[in-house]
């Protein structure tokens, strides 16, 4: 050993940053850590997409098949068979569906992600919420692909979006992202303790889908009935509602249209002014932002025992 000792080079670590592992890191510390690992998040998103569509050059095409099928079926059912009379209904449908798809796929994909990657969770240290966030990240990629397809639809059908509402898009998108991320992270933590939570989530998502005005118009259906009983607010408790409505307002454009069946005026979207939309969106962004912080806090409590539950 003695001849070794003389050969030892000294690594100077006196300036190296000190990391602390403690029983309960602060929320601020955890968020800083999460931000510090954004490169990892990026790589996980890429590998997520790769694993899902490995070996198929048509990967992205396949990933679009399911949403395209849904779009086609809903269009047939509501526009062709049930004749809801909404002109260019496919645009209305599509602008709501891309929002719903992102939320749905994020949450469904995240519920079991920690369990599926147990091997990693037990061996490498990284912020565990990154697993759910990477699933959300992959759905963001699909979201933008679908957005591009929607744009093609708009051009082909010669449909004008509401240009003055377009600046709402980033705000509504960030809200959607934070909401999807919050629910996904929370669920990924809870399912570790309750494995059958995944089934319950599926049912709840189905319910939420029908409580969100994606395949039907709220104004044109239940709005009058709810207003009569003073219960309109109840419908807006679902945070997906204002987000979906904002997207529809931007891309579908019109609030009142003429029915293709009767020629009468149909109220498709709320008669809110641009300013009202801004207020609604900003308030929702604030609420969802706080919700995400709450989720981070709760997840911090949940992740402590992951190792012994997995």
């Amino acid at each position: 050993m003695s001849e070794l000792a003389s050969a030892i080079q000294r690594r100077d670590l006196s300036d190296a940053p000190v990391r602390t592992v403690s029983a309960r890191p602060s929320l601020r510390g955890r968020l800083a850590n999460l931000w510090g690992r954004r490169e990892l998040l990026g790589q996980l998103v890429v590998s997520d997409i790769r694993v899902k569509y490995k070996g198929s050059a048509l990967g992205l095409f396949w990933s679009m098949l399911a949403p395209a099928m849904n779009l086609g079926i809903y269009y047939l059912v509501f526009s062709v068979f049930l004749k809801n009379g909404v002109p260019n209904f496919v645009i209305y449908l599509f602008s709501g569906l891309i929002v719903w798809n992102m939320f749905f796929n994020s949450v469904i994909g995240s519920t079991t992600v920690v369990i599926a990657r147990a091997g990693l969770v037990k061996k490498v240290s990284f912020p565990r919420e990154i697993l759910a966030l990477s699933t959300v990240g992959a759905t963001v990629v699909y979201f933008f692909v679908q957005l591009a397809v929607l744009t093609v639809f708009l051009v082909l059908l010669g449909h004008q979006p509401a240009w003055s509402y377009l600046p709402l898009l980033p705000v509504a998108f960030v809200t959607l992202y934070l909401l999807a991320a919050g629910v996904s992270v929370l669920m990924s933590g809870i399912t570790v303790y309750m494995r059958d939570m995944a089934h319950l989530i599926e049912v709840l998502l189905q319910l939420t889908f029908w409580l969100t005005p994606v395949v039907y118009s709220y104004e044109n259906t239940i709005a009058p009935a709810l207003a009569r009983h003073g219960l309109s607010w109840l419908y807006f408790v679902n945070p997906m509602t204002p987000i979906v409505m904002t997207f529809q307002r931007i891309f579908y454009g019109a609030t009142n249209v003429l029915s293709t069946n009767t020629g009468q005026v149909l109220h498709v979207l709320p008669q809110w002014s641009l300013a009202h939309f801004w207020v609604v969106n900003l308030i929702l962004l604030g609420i969802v932002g706080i919700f995400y912080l709450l989720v981070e806090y709760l997840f911090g409590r949940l992740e402590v025992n992951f190792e012994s539950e997995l």
Partner: protein
Amino acid sequence: MVNTIEVQGIFKEFVIHHERHQSLKERLLHPGSGTSEKFRALENISFSIAAGETVGILGHNGSGKSTLLKTICGVLAPTTGEIKLRGTLAALLELGAGFQPELSGRENVYLYGAMLGLKRKEVAAIFDEIVDFSEIGKFIDTQVKFYSSGMYVRLAFAVAVNVDPDILVVDEVLAVGDERFRAKCMDRIIRFQREGRTILLVTHDADQVRRLCSRTIVLNRGELVFDGPTTEGLKVFREHLHASEDSTTNSANENIEITSVTTPSGTFDVRSGEGMHFDVAISSAKAYAGHFVMELHSRRGELISRSDAMTSPVQLKPGSNVVGIDIAALPLLDGVYDLNVGIVDEIGQNVLAWSEKAATIEVAYDGREQGIIEIAPSITQL
């Protein structure tokens, strides 16, 4: 000298469920049923490790070694207490790195690099070195699920040692590789030592600890029972190993102790090629039939020779006993060597008494051969 690892009062409790209800349905149907109990895997562990130290962690199965390493790596949060780490850390915790089986080796290397906190281009810069070291070759583009367990560990180890960590944490992973790869890992660990990196090593291989670690921490049932020089650490570890056996099997082997090792001349200096005689004094509480073992180590910790336990039976009587060791000729070269002696049971598996560095032998050699032993080859041109 700065400390790279400071462990301060770590406790870790696991909740053990006796009747697991891992589903919502079961929890709703059987509220309050299913007992659980707290189990302390680590109890008030504190130590600090200076930059450049290599520390071995010893302890029998279930003593908390892996749990301790996991908390240090941040995989597991301690129940109370705090750990401060200075510098970057790469860890290999029990078999493999948590590679994603669906991805190729290449993609996993990048992902694992990112897990350890490296940017993509930083991994790209060391990628070839990693592949070279792992000797995975063309399999690097094969999905990891088709790797053998040795290949898996090789790739994981190659990444961990090539990312330039300040602290390397290794938990029993070296056992899987083949002999050649194991030697390569050893070389790399020794190089790391020279480069002044901190190494934390869990292994059940006492020879490895002796060879690599100047300091040893011994855990027993979650408690730190020893922290100090390796020679004493190994002794404490062996004592605890059979102490815990006693409580379960209750064999009559308590209190066998090696009290001294002496030579007739009183000196442990010897000329190369000469014979040697040692008297080993052993005190025993009870009569015991066992076997005697001796080991000779170089100062680098290499095992030079271990006697065959099965051919050296000893009958210990209550009280003091003396066992003689006769070595007809010691063909060692110049240097200082350590003698370890011990008593093992009849099947040669359990160590009942052990004396690490029971004696230090100094060998003087006049010849010109180099290395450890003299083989005196006669070389003739034919």
